[in-house]
């Protein structure tokens, strides 16, 4: 008899008796649902954070920082050097003909987290003349823009989600007293949970005499190499030049490696538990079907067909569990806004991630069902009848 036909027949026979083993089978379903649910929940966090970090700012931008820096805060660019960088050839032009480049500072302002009053730090970033133009998605949502030279700030629309006292009309304590939030804005990226003020006014107030970074948009993407060469070979400057997406990836690399290790570590431990559950269930299933299997063998069905049918049953239950876990994680997490430290971002459960977890489910089923399926395949007629 055709092998495939055998497998189909034996499997459908097994599935028809599944109802008698409903509760046992739930062990696999629940176990795998737990694994995929937890895995996806944690991945949604890591992926959300990672995507938010990668998609921060305009991808056409380039960033200039002090040489060797992988974070912007320790980077320091003196005013005289910034002037050179701001005017390097190759930078796109604003409408008034000035170069589309902006030197700015960022600093952490101590505050409290809304969620549990833990100590938090909101990022205060500054815009110079071209700061807004370098962020095409920037738009005011309420209130008005800060006026350069006055002690005013604007806050991202998501800042109040993570921090206390960061809504329109609230006052932020900075060295020169209380700065009112006169407007709120949105850009659609991490800036939405930050404060923005005027570069020179803020620098004067927090007594910074150096910029942290210079951001620029190039006239064309191909100008990058020349732009970088102009800056890195200038003996007065000691800077690194990067495309913004590369810079974003650099900063988020170290932490996300560890996050992934923690996520997969936890999931592997859970999966091992689910795997043993699968083993137990399939072992019991093979035992309880011993009569049926013996009869099938006596009728001439091959051991392999029986083994495959056992694995198929395990995989089916496991994938069902995986889909349940994934649906729960998707319903609870996908698109949810959450905050971590100074960042506010949305959790992501993508089809690709669900696909990965379904592969996990299949792996659990195959590994857990392997020994029971071999056991079933080796079952001879006399063994099975004796087991009765």
């Amino acid at each position, binding site marked *: 008899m055709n092998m495939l036909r055998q497998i189909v027949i034996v499997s459908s026979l097994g599935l028809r008796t599944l109802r008698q083993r409903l509760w046992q089978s*739930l062990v696999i379903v629940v176990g795998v649902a*737990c694994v995929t649910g937890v895995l996806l929940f944690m991945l949604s966090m890591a992926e959300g954070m990672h995507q938010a970090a990668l998609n921060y700012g305009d991808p056409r931008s380039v960033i200039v920082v002090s040489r*060797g820096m992988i974070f912007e805060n320790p980077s320091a660019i003196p005013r005289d050097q910034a002037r050179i960088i701001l005017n390097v050839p190759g930078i796109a032009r604003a409408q008034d003909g000035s170069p589309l480049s902006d030197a700015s500072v960022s600093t952490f*302002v101590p505050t409290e*987290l809304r969620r549990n009053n*833990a*100590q938090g730090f909101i990022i205060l970033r500054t815009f110079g003349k071209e700061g807004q133009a370098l962020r095409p998605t920037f738009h005011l949502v309420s209130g008005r823009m800060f006026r350069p030279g006055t002690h005013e700030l604007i806050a991202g629309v998501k800042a109040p989600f993570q921090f206390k006292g960061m809504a329109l009309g609230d006052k932020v304590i900075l060295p020169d007293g209380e700065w009112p939030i006169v407007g709120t804005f949105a850009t659609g990226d991490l800036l939405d949970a930050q404060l923005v003020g005027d570069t020179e006014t803020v620098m004067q107030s*927090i007594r910074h005499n150096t910029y942290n970074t210079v951001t620029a948009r190039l006239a064309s993407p191909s100008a990058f190499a020349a732009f970088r060469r102009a800056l890195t070979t200038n003996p007065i400057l000691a800077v690194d030049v990067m495309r913004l997406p590369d810079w974003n990836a650099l900063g988020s690399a170290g932490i996300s490696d560890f996050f992934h*290790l923690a996520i997969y570590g936890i999931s592997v431990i859970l999966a091992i538990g689910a795997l043993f*559950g699968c083993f137990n269930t399939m072992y019991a299933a093979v035992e309880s079907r011993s009569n049926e299997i013996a009869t099938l063998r006596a009728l001439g069905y091959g051991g392999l067909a029986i083994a495959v049918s056992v694995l198929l049953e395990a995989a089916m239950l496991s994938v069902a569990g995986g889909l349940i876990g994934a649906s729960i994680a998707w319903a609870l997490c996908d698109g949810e806004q959450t905050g971590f430290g100074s960042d506010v971002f949305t959790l992501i459960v993508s089809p690709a991630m669900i696909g990965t977890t379904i592969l996990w489910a299949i792996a659990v089923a195959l590994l857990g069902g392997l020994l029971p399926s071999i056991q079933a395949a080796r079952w001879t007629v006399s063994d099975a009848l004796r087991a009765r």
Partner: protein
Amino acid sequence: MKYFPLVWAALRRKPIRTLVTFLSVTAAFTLFGLMIGLNDTLHQLEARAPANRIWTVGRFGDRAMPIAAAHRIARLPGIKKVSVMSYLNGYVGDPKNVAGALMADDVYGDIFTDQLTPEGWESIRRDHTTVTMSRQQAEHFHLKVGDIYKVIAPQSVRADGTNVWELKVGHISEDVPQVPNGMVAGSYDYYDRSLPLAKQGTIAEADSIVDDPANAAALSKQIDRLFANSAHPTQTTPEKTLYAVNNFFGGMNVGALTHGIALIGLLMILFLIGNVIAQSVRERRAEFAALKTIGFSDAKLIALVAIEAALPCIAGALCGVLTAAALSEQLPKVMPRTFGIPPPVMSPAVYMLALASAFLLALASAALPALRLRRQDIAAVLSGRA
């Protein structure tokens, strides 16, 4: 106890099933141990933070304060002792190989007795050009006593114009839980003297001991008010607040997160054990009927089933937490050194909680099968009619 052989025989009847049950319980409790252990460790850190220590740093970013600020803090009534320090931030070899040292004055070691051993602090005081390293850091940089720790610090240019700091390792001390990623400490005096004259006299942190812990919060506010309108506003925080549990994972609710994951693991094996016990009882209905016939009470039978469920649970729980302890010892090797989260330590409380959970798990999973057992008709079972 005298019925132990009965339970043992039941467990040995299907050795593979018992073994696999035990292993899955072990896996669930490994996770339980890691999660609850982490939560517990963070709470201990918070509890261990001395209530009389407050930290003063520049309020905005990594701003340095003038050392005069520390002198002003020291003059405030209620402040017992003040020490100052700066950070040497840089890298060894490659910019990604982050390295540095905490450069502390001679008082610092008297205030932070919990960060390094007294010998460690003493070694720095004896020779201001040396650093003391915790074992973890020394292993990371492959250094031993007498070696040179060569840090390239772009933000700390020396008086001679270079940014290379060659510091001799004077002492290596054991790691302490309060400093999860280990530390390197040197002398503030040496650091400050090595800077160009114009850069000298600034500090990154002024740390104080207050007379009365009850005043820690009020004094912190007072210090910040003192400098509010100066060129160097400060941010002063009692150490207890700094080490609050929810400050660790970016303000996430650590308790809910760790307990949630641990509970999901338990939920998963609850189903598994419940099924195993149900199956085992179903297969041995005749045996239980026979026991009933010779005078075993319902309560006794239920106890037998509960113990049969409890044994693999409790053994698995113990093994799981032990595995978690072994795993977390390996954690520092894979954790980014700048992460600042301590590897979980399994305290007796974690073991107790694991055992209690295992016991509850066994009771919960044995409940249904045991009840069914109570209702069963002996005559029917023994005559093969049920």
